[in-house]
């Protein structure tokens, strides 16, 4: 079983990203389960969502404590939330950040990937400059980490699920899928 934890902010489409990925992996043949960690949702407040992928039926219905992957939609969350909490040694952390992280200290022992999802979203007119919608870009980048589902399936799901600016959202996912930098293990 693969367990993924999303970190984002209320209103940033974090839960939608987890649902889009769940549907993508389900179409690819996996069993899936996704749910948000429920707080009382407020715009801008830190939120978490969970996604499980498995070959067989998923039984466990508790929160995820030891993820294999962590997705961070807003780089500023790193100073607020312990984003590597429980991440398995060698587990992947995917960051939305404008350039390669200069301080990789907090990610020691994990594998690191980054993508400029904010840049992509702003260029494609997704959300606003101060509140860009980076969720579809992050899903595109995430597929490169797992190589478990084809990009085409994700793009089909985005067409089906995203009502606002579907074309731009597809482009964001495809671009992030291409541009994501897999730095690998952080020594």
């Amino acid at each position: 079983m693969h367990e993924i934890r999303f970190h984002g902010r209320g209103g940033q489409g974090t839960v939608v990203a987890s649902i889009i990925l769940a549907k993508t992996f389900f179409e690819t043949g996996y069993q899936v389960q996704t749910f948000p960690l429920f707080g009382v949702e407020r715009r801008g407040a830190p939120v978490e969502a969970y996604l499980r992928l498995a070959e067989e039926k998923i039984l466990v219905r508790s929160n995820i404590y030891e993820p294999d992957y962590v997705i961070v939609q807003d780089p500023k969350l790193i100073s607020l939330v312990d984003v590597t909490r429980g991440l398995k040694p060698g587990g992947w952390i995917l960051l939305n950040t404008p350039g390669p992280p200069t301080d990789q200290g907090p990610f020691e022992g994990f594998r690191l990937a980054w993508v400029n999802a904010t840049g992509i979203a702003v260029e494609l007119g997704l959300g606003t400059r101060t509140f860009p919608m980076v969720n579809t870009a992050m899903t595109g980048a995430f597929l490169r980490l797992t190589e478990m589902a084809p990009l085409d399936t994700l793009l089909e799901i985005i067409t089906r699920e995203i009502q606002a600016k579907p074309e731009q959202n597809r482009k964001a996912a495809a671009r992030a899928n291409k541009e994501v930098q897999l730095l690998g293990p952080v020594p």
Partner: protein
Amino acid sequence: MKQVLEGSHAVSEAVRLARVQVVSAYPITPQTHIVEAISEFCSDGTMDARFICVESEHSAMAAVIGASNAGVRAFTATSSHGLALMHELLHWASGARLPIVMAEVNRALAPGWNIWTDQTDSLAQRDTGWIQLYCEDGQEVLDTTLEAFRLAEAVNLPVMVVLDAFFLSHTFEPVDVPDQDTVDRFLPPFDPRFRLDTKNPCAFGPITGPDRYMEIRRDIQAAMDRAPEVLAAVEQEFFSLFGRRYGAVDAFLCDDAEVILVVSGTAAATCRQAVGDLRKTGERVGMLKIRLFRPFPATEIRAILPKAPKVAVVDRNVSFGAGGIFAQEVKAALALHKGNTAVYSYIAGLGGRDITTATFQEIYLTTKDTPTPPAESVWVGLAQEERA
């Protein structure tokens, strides 16, 4: 066709497929997604139904009581404080023998203000004459809601389909949504035994003195007594059409178990995983899921639990002054049995506190290592400094 569906929407889809004619509800987290989707079905013509917006849950239940009395299939949904506010009318619905179906999303009661899962809200309504079914996953929610209409209309009692907040209501997972034709074969249009009819006027709910009231109550009890048998027949038919069935209870690896964990709701799914993991390390542990809580399936329980010397009931609820509610019922059911099965009672996961596989391992090991059960329920997973 299987699709990735939210637990709440598994209810909404079932209500659509059941061709419900009147829905009335008042929104409350975490139930809101259920009626939001139904409201869209009603407005876009997907459902040929009236959605009656009301100012409170008390009025929502009143509206579906009126609709059901008029002879149409009626549905509502609520949670926690909303259910508590309905309390008076829950008695009215069952007393009037109305086959209303309600989805109840388990949520804790305040204070402290808490929107997370906890069964105390629905279990506090256990004496209202409603049949109660507790669900484990999204598929079971959809299937149980369909079965609920058949069951309710067969015994003329209302049915509560109960699902955990968030761990089920807001969780997306693959769910097979059946086609309308097959559901129509399973669930024909509602054919009421009695209804408000201007051509045949009669009074409903008149004053009933000491000479009549007791027999009416005895009849409700008799209808409850029939419910397990009717549920089994309904499930047999459901199985022949859809290939799935759940039972009043579900025993998992109980035959040679030294300890049987007794659970309900989504904790049952996590418990299956924990039992499987423990079995791999050679532990003789099993699980009994209780799906039907009212009427309490004492006969089924007496057929399974006495196989084990020890039973650990895990309650996500509490009756203050008496402990875990499922544990009380299990003890009462086993009192008629002459065996030596010891019942251990644990309280876990209140107000949405997580119940993990580790929780079940701890409960299993504690039960295994404790020679005789304590008189009181044992609280699991408390923060030490928070103990009063």
